[in-house]
């Protein structure tokens, strides 16, 4: 480890860094703009200048750029030398000559890297008296606001957008002092990672439009560490909330990235960043609702749908408790339906209330079996679930039948970095340090092999060395063929067409030759064979190299793997429930169904859902009004992720705890509290009910889960528990600069009210308490003196880019290792009539996820219902792109717009999963349907003939 001297102090540091990196890791403040910990150095902004001395005799030294200077043993540097300070001050003075006088009306103000660096450089007085350069802004879509005047031309935006995230529609245009960062013309930014520009841009050129609608400064946000609930990757987020001040309750204002070294690093996808707004949606349930039996003259409610009115929570709970009592006394059947989008604690509370034998997962058989299969595969000791840095490090990647760009976007971003590994290797051979970003990217050499098989997405095509769109069946056969070649056992190799065989040979060779191969698959195909195939390849690779092979299996929802842990394989699906309800009809016993945060219409076919919702009493706990809510007799308002505490298990089998950012509005509380309250009011006394009623803290439930399920034993030590204190104090959720404490509620009552108490977390809903608990995982307000922007994250890391200082509050599931049995690809499927098309799910970043689709900004960019068919099928049916077509299933039919794609395999019809308007189709995927064309709307309007 080299020894260096900075300003007379001796330091021992890691080799291979640049000086800027080393200074920041050592806690020395050195201003910078163009350097980014995830993107390396380009030496463009000249802001991190320091003096390097030849030896101790040298008094003068020379000026070098910190970010471009490799550390050398015995090096002598000075950050605080006058000449270096003057130089940095001069650079920033130049950068500021054109900067507009905008800070008061700029969303970045108060968390602006440019403000911080200007302060740090000591440039306080503007001497420039000339004119300022100005630019026109562009419309960049509903997420990002553009204010080009504020640009300092550090090139971070295009480096992130184009080079890191693979976007192509944002570029540096123009030249010299007039360079412009924007699109060729107005329009929404195409990349699904555009939201990161808000954090990457050191000034206010790109700001969060959704945040601006209910803007407050960073210091006025109340924050807590949370987890993104919009997919199963489990990215850590820092949502911020604040009361509006007009007497209404707090609203969620925005979501920013919260660094977690092993999961999301510095970046989030746009679904995660802008999907938060569903919490503030008009459709939010804030009061207890109960059916009304009023005589109405007319209603818009459909057949079977119920009309609701507010009910006092106490009465509703009493009604709920009576149901439970009746069930306990054997006069009523009480069924509980859980949900993969609710926390483990909520699901466990429901299981406790109704009893394990009456508790169902809220998924259809196919989906639940897939999750159990993922769980089973991940237990195999020959493979492991890679973290994001491990994915970025892979030197060969095979993606099997999973549209990761849409279902696990953060993982796709990591795969994009993996594509550069050969280039990085080449750089290392040439002794070019990897942080020399521009030099490394100039190196020739083929990109690392990325094979996309059975994936329709165009998102990763630009980095794919092979892209093979094919059906799920072919994907599985292809996987089986690779696995056979890898294990050297050719007997089970399935019959593949010649072209595919060659490709399989090729793929097997690439994977076998790779040092760190990675297989990615998931539940996206909703096909077990795909998962089996991925597992077979990974295990074969693991056996070959005698070290575990990386296999990432993407699950569909935030707690999918968590809910699978609560059930034995083969039990708990909705079909079983429907069946048992049907067989129980003879007993004549009334049935009550408690549905936990779940829209059943998205989960199972119409018949099953009808069977379940025909129950005598339907009790729903949910956050948003949905189709299921229309059928419920009693609806309790459930807390959203940002309003509650609990645990989720991500696709990797990592359990993480999230904390409540703010108290929910109205009567909103966590679902488990409603259940616990109802159990408390219940007349019948049973040990399970008493236990449920006695739980006071979310952590009590976590401990109970850890106790009951051995694989989740680590849940008990996930993070600081409710009784944790630092110097006898809780951690404050509000910053020390939180403003308006004595005025915000003053309109209603001038005397201040005490803050809400938080019974669940060692955190307070106020400014009181420990402000900067950097050594705990409880800090979500990334701030440090002099570093107001999110760039201050390095003050919370062990070293720049490294893990955070404290234990990160995550724990892997402790599953018993169990090798997968050998597997052979299924041969041939049932023949399909020529009129039928195979329905295959497609996924959309905006729309496939139930909750984020209800956020205002995201809802505005969701596509109309559509379906994609191959050119061949389209011409056979005389369907043109844009035609209105009807997907006909035996039980339902859906009206969509036709799209035609060359990538869509023949005989298949791609339908977007869960897209608003097609939610109920999700349960039928994959399946078969016929397609018929309706009148061509555009041509009828223009007077053409309808066919």
């Amino acid at each position: 480890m080299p020894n260096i001297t900075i300003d007379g102090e001796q330091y021992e540091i890691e080799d291979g860094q640049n000086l800027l990196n080393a200074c920041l890791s050592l806690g020395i403040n050195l201003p910078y703009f163009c350097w980014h910990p995830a993107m390396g150095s380009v030496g463009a902004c000249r802001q991190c200048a320091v003096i390097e001395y030849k030896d101790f005799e040298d008094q003068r030294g020379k000026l070098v750029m910190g970010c471009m200077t490799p550390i050398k043993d015995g090096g002598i540097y000075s950050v605080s030398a006058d000449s270096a300070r003057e130089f940095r001050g001069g650079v920033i003075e130049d950068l500021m000559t054109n900067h507009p006088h905008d800070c008061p009306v700029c969303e970045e103000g108060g968390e602006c890297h440019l403000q911080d660096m200007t302060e740090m450089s000591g440039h306080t007085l503007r001497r420039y008296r000339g004119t300022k350069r100005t630019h026109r802004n562009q419309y960049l879509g509903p997420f990002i606001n553009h204010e080009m005047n504020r640009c300092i031309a550090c090139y971070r935006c295009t480096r992130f957008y184009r080079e890191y995230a693979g976007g192509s529609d944002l570029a540096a245009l123009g030249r010299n002092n007039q360079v412009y960062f924007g699109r060729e013309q107005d329009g929404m930014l195409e990349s699904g990672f555009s939201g990161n520009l808000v954090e990457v841009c050191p000034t206010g050129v790109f700001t969060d439009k959704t945040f601006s609608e209910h803007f407050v400064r960073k210091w006025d946000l109340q924050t807590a560490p949370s987890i993104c609930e919009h997919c199963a990757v489990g990215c850590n987020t820092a949502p911020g909330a604040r009361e509006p001040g007009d007497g209404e309750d707090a609203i969620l204002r925005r979501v920013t990235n919260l660094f977690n070294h092993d999961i999301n690093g510095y970046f989030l996808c746009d679904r995660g960043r802008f999907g938060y707004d569903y919490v503030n949606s008009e459709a939010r349930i804030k009061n207890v609702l109960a059916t009304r039996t009023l005589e109405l003259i007319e209603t818009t409610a459909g057949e079977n749908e119920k009309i609701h009115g507010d009910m006092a929570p106490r009465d509703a709970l009493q009604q709920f408790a009576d149901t439970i009592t009746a069930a306990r006394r054997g006069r009523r059947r009480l069924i509980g339906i859980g949900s993969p989008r609710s926390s483990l604690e909520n699901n466990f509370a429901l299981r406790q209330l109704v009893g394990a034998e009456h508790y169902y997962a809220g998924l259809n058989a196919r989906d639940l079996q897939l999750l159990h299969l993922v769980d089973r595969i991940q237990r195999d000791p020959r493979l492991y679930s890679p973290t994001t840095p491990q994915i970025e490090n892979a030197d060969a990647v095979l993606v099997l039948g999973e549209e990761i760009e849409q279902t696990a976007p953060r993982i796709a971003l990591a795969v994009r970095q993996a594509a550069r590994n050969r280039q990085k290797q080449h750089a290392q051979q040439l002794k070019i340090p990897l942080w020399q970003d521009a030099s490394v990217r100039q190196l020739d050499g083929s990109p690392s092999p990325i094979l996309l098989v059975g994936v329709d997405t165009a998102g990763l095509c630009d980095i794919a060395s092979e892209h093979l769109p094919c059906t799920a069946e072919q994907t599985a056969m292809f996987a089986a063929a690779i696995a056979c070649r890898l294990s050297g056992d050719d007997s089970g190799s399935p019959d593949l067409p010649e072209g595919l065989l060659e490709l399989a040979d090729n793929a097997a060779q690439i994977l076998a030759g790779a040092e760190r191969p990675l297989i990615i698959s998931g539940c996206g195909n909703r096909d077990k064979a795909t998962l089996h195939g991925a597992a077979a390849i990974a295990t074969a690779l693991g056996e070959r190299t005698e070290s575990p092979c990386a296999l990432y299996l993407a699950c569909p929802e935030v707690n999918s793997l968590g809910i699978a842990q609560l059930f034995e394989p083969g039990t708990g699906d909705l079909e079983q429930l429907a069946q048992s309800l049907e067989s129980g009809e003879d007993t004549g016993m009334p049935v009550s169904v408690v549905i936990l945060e779940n829209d059943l219409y998205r989960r199972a076919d119409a018949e099953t859902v009808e069977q379940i919702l025909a129950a005598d009493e339907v009790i729903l706990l949910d956050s948003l009004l949905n189709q299921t809510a229309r059928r419920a007799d009693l609806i309790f308002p459930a807390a959203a992720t940002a309003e509650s505490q609990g645990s989720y298990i991500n696709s990797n089998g990592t359990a993480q705890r999230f904390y409540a950012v703010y108290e929910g509005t109205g009567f909103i509380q966590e679902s488990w509290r409603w259940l616990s309250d109802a159990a408390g009011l219940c007349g019948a006394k049973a040990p399970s009910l008493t236990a449920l009623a006695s739980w006071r803290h979310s952590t009590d439930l976590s401990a109970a889960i850890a106790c009951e399920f051995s694989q989740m034993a680590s849940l008990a030590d996930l993070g600081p528990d409710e009784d944790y204190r630092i110097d006898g104090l809780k951690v404050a959720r509000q910053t020390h600069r939180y403003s308006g404490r004595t005025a915000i509620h003053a309109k209603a009552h001038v005397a201040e009210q005490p803050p809400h108490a938080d019974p669940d977390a060692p955190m307070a809903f106020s400014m009181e308490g420990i402000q900067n608990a950097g050594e705990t995982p409880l800090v979500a307000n990334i701030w440090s003196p002099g570093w107001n922007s999110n760039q201050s994250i390095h003050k919370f890391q062990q070293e720049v880019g490294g893990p955070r200082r404290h234990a990160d509050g995550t724990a892997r599931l402790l599953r018993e290792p169990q090798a997968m049995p050998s597997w052979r690809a299924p041969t041939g499927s049932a023949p399909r009539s020529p009129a039928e098309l195979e329905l295959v799910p497609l996924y959309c970043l905006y729309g496939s996820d139930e909750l984020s689709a209800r956020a205002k900004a995201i809802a505005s960019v969701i596509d109309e219902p559509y379906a994609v068919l191959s050119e061949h099928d389209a011409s056979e049916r005389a369907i043109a792109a844009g035609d209105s077509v009807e997907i006909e299933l035996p039980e339902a039919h859906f009206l969509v717009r036709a799209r035609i794609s060359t990538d869509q395999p023949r005989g298949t019809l791609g339908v977007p999963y869960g897209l608003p308007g097609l939610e109920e189709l999700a349960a039928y995927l994959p399946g078969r349907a016929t397609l018929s064309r309706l009148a061509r709307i555009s041509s009828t309007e223009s007077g053409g003939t309808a066919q």
Partner: protein
Amino acid sequence: MLASQLRSMWLVFRHLFTRNATVQYPDEKPYLAPRYRGRIVLTRDPDGDERCVACNLCAVACPPDCISLQKTEDEDGRWRPAYFRINFSRCIMCGLCEDACPTYAIQLTPDFEMCEYDRQNMVYEKEDLLISGPGKYHDYSFYRVAGKAIDGKDKGQAQKEAPPIDVKSLNL
């Protein structure tokens, strides 16, 4: 000992002939300079528009945290406070909000006499604070200096601004 007492008595006696320093407030008002730091007002720019752009700097500078506001953006592109509230029952009249205000919207006035039987009446809203003039700074208009475009002031039309760049030109 005796000398000291005599001296004290002499001093007290002498004060019978000096001018009285006590002001008979409230019958008699003391002189307060125009820049005396009393109750705040919200001023308007020379065009008569609200000067406050809801930047929140006054709120964060306020030691007793007695200012609260919410930014909203109008159709014309200007930022304005949707509400601006100050709880004068907490205000210590320190003037830090005036210091922090980047648009000269907040100005302190010599009025400090705010007595109420009901403390609730000490809560002032934007409507109570807005005056119709520019206060001490007659000519200053923030948006004429700022780079942000608003209705009636396009890019390049603020003070010391060059006309907007046409990216598609040669830019020589």
